């Protein structure tokens, strides 16, 4: 991993120095003991700040979209012939590249505006799981050596394995290597351990009686404080004006009314049909720990079963709701 980090820095430095990209989006060390945070490098010398480790969690594809669109917006008053394009370099693992594929399929920007520094990924550590592993105690230091994790809290030191605290979406990930890239770093990572069990949780949930499913949905949604961190971190949520913010018509109330929160979450998730890459960012950033993945993964499963499609799998495979086939399944159609 240190080797990958080194190469990421070298690549970023090179791309910035030779002018291939205007900015590189990657991860750097945060102020909390083990957190890594998004960083934005424009000066080749700053490439040394970049890190690559098991705490690199949020999906960076969102920032590529943001940077390109902010640049576009800044040029509205520039003459068309004088406008420039912004080229963004990005440190991207499998899920990040799938999000970039979705942006490209949805014609958000051109392929030559993003330079992908692909990195093999062995999964990131989920904050919530890590916190639960130490009973919610504040972690003062946390170090990783291979698959062993050493966690220190006020209450003492604990050794756990990385697999215990990897994000759920990483454990079952089938795309831990980039699906597209311009520069590939390191060797392809081995498959993640639970790929075959990808839909086990969804299958089990489907088996529950309907009222238990509703009770779970209700309980999880009641935690939501409507901060919209899930939406804002999601690379597929890039609408200029989200439906929750529209006033004419007002689709959803502004408060934390039980029904409004349910409808907001339901519809935001539904907008992810064929577009959710299961990067786990929404789960990772949620301050209240809402189990969004339980629901998003169902859309993923149906997408695969009904339309044989996986979000952002390749540039050729179009998002499932933008295409259709004559012979799509229609058992659900009511015939009196």
């Amino acid at each position: 991993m240190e080797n990958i980090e080194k190469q990421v820095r070298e690549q970023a430095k090179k791309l910035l120095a030779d002018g291939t990209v205007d900015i590189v989006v990657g991860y750097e060390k945060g102020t909390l003991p083990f957190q890594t945070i998004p960083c934005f490098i424009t000066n080749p010398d700053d490439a040394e700040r970049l890190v690559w480790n098991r705490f690199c969690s949020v999906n960076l594809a969102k920032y590529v979209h943001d940077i390109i669109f902010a640049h576009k917006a800044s040029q509205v008053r520039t003459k068309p012939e004088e406008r420039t394009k912004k080229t963004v370099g990005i440190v991207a693992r499998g899920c990040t590249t799938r999000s970039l594929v979705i942006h490209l399929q949805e014609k958000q920007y051109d392929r030559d505006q993003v330079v992908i520094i692909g990195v093999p990924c062995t999964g990131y550590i989920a904050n919530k799981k890590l916190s639960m592993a130490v009973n919610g105690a504040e972690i003062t230091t946390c170090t990783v050596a291979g698959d062993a994790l050493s966690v220190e809290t006020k209450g003492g030191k604990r050794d756990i394995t990385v697999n215990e605290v990897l994000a759920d979406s990483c454990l079952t990930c089938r795309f831990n290597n980039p699906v597209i890239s311009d520069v590939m770093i390191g060797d392809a990572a081995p498959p993640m351990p639970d790929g075959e069990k990808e839909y086990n949780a969804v299958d089990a949930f489907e088996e529950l009686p309907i009222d238990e499913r509703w009770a779970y949905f209700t309980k999880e949604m009641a935690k939501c404080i409507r901060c919209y961190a899930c939406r804002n971190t999601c690379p597929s949520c890039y609408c200029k004006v989200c439906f929750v913010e529209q006033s004419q018509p007002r689709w959803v109330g502004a408060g934390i009314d039980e029904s409004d929160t349910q409808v907001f979450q339901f519809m935001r998730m539904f907008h992810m049909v064929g577009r959710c890459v299961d990067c786990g960012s929404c789960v990772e950033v949620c301050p209240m720990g809402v189990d969004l993945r339980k629901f998003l993964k169902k859309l993923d499963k149906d997408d695969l079963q009904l339309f044989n499609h996986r979000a952002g799998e390749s540039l050729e495979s179009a998002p499932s709701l933008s295409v259709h086939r004559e012979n799509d399944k229609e058992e659900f159609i009511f015939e009196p």
Partner: protein
Amino acid sequence: MEKRVIKKDALAGIIKKMAENMVVYAPVRDEDNVLFTVLEEEMEPLLEFDNTKNAPKNFFFPQTEVMMRYMKTERGRELSTVEGEATPAVLFGVRPCDARSFVLLDNVFNDPKYKDPYYIDRREKTTIVSLACVQPPYTTCFCTSVDGHPFSAEGADVLLVDLGDTYLAEFVTPKGEELLKKMGDLPAADEALEAKKEKLSDAAGKAVNGVVPGRAIKSWMDENFEHPFWDTIHQSCLACGTCTYLCPTCHCFDITDEIKKEDGRRIRSWDSCMSWLFTMETSGHNPRPSQKQRWRQRAMHKFKYFVDNYDAIACVGCGRCVMYCPVNIDIRKIVTDISNL
């Protein structure tokens, strides 16, 4: 001021007994969150906890509250009821930083010219029992940098101090003394316990990890509204409202109407300066068009504007925004960085 002693193993019983006759809010574990909730019969109040995830401002200034209801009439819609009548309650187990937040919020909601009846009513009817931080709970705590202290009784009616096998209970306000009557017979505290408290208090103050120049940066802010520094902090911001919604002192809100069939209600709900919609005008003009301006607003509001208006920093140093920011934007670092400019 009354000072009494409560046996450690007796406290939970006293709280539960109080909860039989009145509304008691206390920290309760809910899966991996510790949250303030209404203490129901089967629930156990949490006495050993660091701090809650949600700030207790919710009890005076709920995330969503109905302000008034209205009904359809022949001429339009007319007011039917004004909401917001509070029931007396006890808010138990508030950390001193959070208790101070109420004093800060009073500045806004209990302004001499315009009083906010919803907030004031609840505030007046609620007795606050604080729990001093013998050990500052987190490494992200920085209350002493923003005029607070782990043993501060500011904003509290009763302050509890954990002395090992007993609690020293100080009934600091008349409202607190009123509550004493409901707590049964409690022995008076002697001077030895007082001395012990003072010692613990000194140690706790020194143990607060985060030290930032909270007051000092105002003079820089007075002069540097347009400074390149403001270009450096917002880039990774997701523009979510986590920091503002978990903050004990953030108090911005939105007012919206909701109707179902003919009748409806006017509600107010928390709003966040991190959202582009917050200042967006109908014309399409937005005085704070990008996250840069919004972040400057948040930092300036806490460390300059509030100080200008009320001579207090609108931050109590609880560290929630530091801990729960999804991309770790750290207000302590911002303050420190500014002081080094």
